[in-house]
């Protein structure tokens, strides 16, 4: 499993896809927002938590379709499935690799982008914390969507249609934590709910993804 993780990470970094692309997309969305709503700093600061969360979500979505598709095309997915590793484990590893190359950089870069969006100073901790806890759920849910659409040619658009509604609860609680943090309100309860979604998704969704992937490889 560790070897698989290392392989996926190496592929993401070296093969010129995924890594960095999500981050750049995140930056572009953040740059576009002020053009859309105007450069007034008060307004930007107020919408910053929500905009940062939506941007992170879209950036996550961008690299989902390559999670299984490349391995599916060159046949290495078949090899992985026939290996002694449980398929659920393979999917979890793939989701973790996706998170390490997409989610974690977003979390690390969020404070810088929050600066661009003029987020109030006391909101940084809640924002980073909410992204740190919430983005794993995005990767795991995304893995389910990617497994669903792996056999479909040009499934990217379908993937977003399938995955985005599933992202709604995560987005609501994540953005709520960030918003309350920015307004100096207590945010324990949405944070706990967000963590609940993340852990439940991590524990249960790989089973569904594995079932779907087995159907697709039949």
């Amino acid at each position, binding site marked *: 499993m560790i070897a698989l993780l290392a392989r996926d990470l190496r592929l993401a970094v070296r093969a010129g896809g995924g890594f960095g692309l999500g981050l750049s997309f995140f930056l572009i969305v953040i740059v576009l927002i002020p053009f859309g709503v105007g450069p007034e700093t008060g307004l930007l600061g107020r919408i910053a938590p929500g905009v940062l969360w939506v941007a992170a979500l879209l950036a996550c979505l961008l690299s989902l379709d390559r999670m299984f598709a490349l391995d599916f095309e060159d046949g290495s997915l078949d090899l992985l499935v026939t290996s002694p590793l449980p398929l659920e484990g393979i999917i979890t590893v793939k989701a973790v690799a996706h998170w390490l190359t997409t989610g974690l950089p977003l979390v690390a870069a969020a404070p810088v982008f929050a600066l661009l969006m003029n987020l109030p100073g006391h909101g940084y901790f809640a924002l980073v914390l909410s992204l740190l806890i919430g983005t794993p759920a995005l990767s795991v849910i995304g893995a389910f969507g990617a497994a669903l659409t792996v056999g*479909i040619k040009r499934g990217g658009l379908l993937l977003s249609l*399938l995955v*985005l*509604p599933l992202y*709604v609860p995560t987005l609501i609680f994540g953005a709520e934590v960030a918003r309350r943090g920015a307004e100096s309100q207590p945010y324990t309860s*949405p944070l706990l*709910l967000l963590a609940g979604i993340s852990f439940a998704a991590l524990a249960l*969704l790989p089973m569904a993804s594995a079932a779907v992937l087995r159907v*697709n490889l039949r």
Partner: protein
Amino acid sequence: MASIWEYANPLKFMRTTEAALPFIGWAAALCLGVGLVWGFFFTPDDFRQGSTVKIFYIHVPSAMMAINIWVMMLITSLIWIVRRHHVSALAARAAAPIGAVMTLIALFTGAVWGQPMWGTWWAWDPRLTSFLILFLFYLGYMALWAAIENDDTAADLTSILCLVGSVFALLSRYAVNFWNQGLHQGASLSLDKKENVADVFWYPALVSIAGFVLLFVALVIVRTNTEIRARRARALMARERLG
């Protein structure tokens, strides 16, 4: 002993449903006609809402159907996963577009009612928002059915999507409650008599709900049987090409 699983046989299913279809269809037409005409012309205007209250006879049944159709799809998907009866998967597929249309009707009539009553076509109220999300789930489900060539693969994938989607739809339903306080009133129809609307509105609403349910059953039967026939035709053509 007769068992419900006998209807997993497409032939038996088609024979029974085709025989029942005219009755269900006419009953649906009758109930809808009586319920809507009664509701529109023979009930008094509401004390505060005036005649706008009459949209209730379309809005409430379609909203109930929108949710219950998803539940029906969930059950038929489970039956497909567990017992692999094709009719079940086809019924789920047949129900999805009807559910999407019901959701759209509920949203549309709600908007038309909300404009004079709340002063706005749309508000990000929990109920409204969760209905919009439900609509997106229907769209995704139908898109997945349409995207996959192999029928059995499509049935498997969409069933699992339906199961996972149900969990997330429920989560979203309560998450949006957390996110925004509502403008929408509470339940207008419940079995608890104290919370109900007055009897003059209640009876035509019941008839109209029965009409919507019957209409849905009739449409699902027609659509499922059409799909069974289409598959049979495809199989025949494939056999002819081989032979």
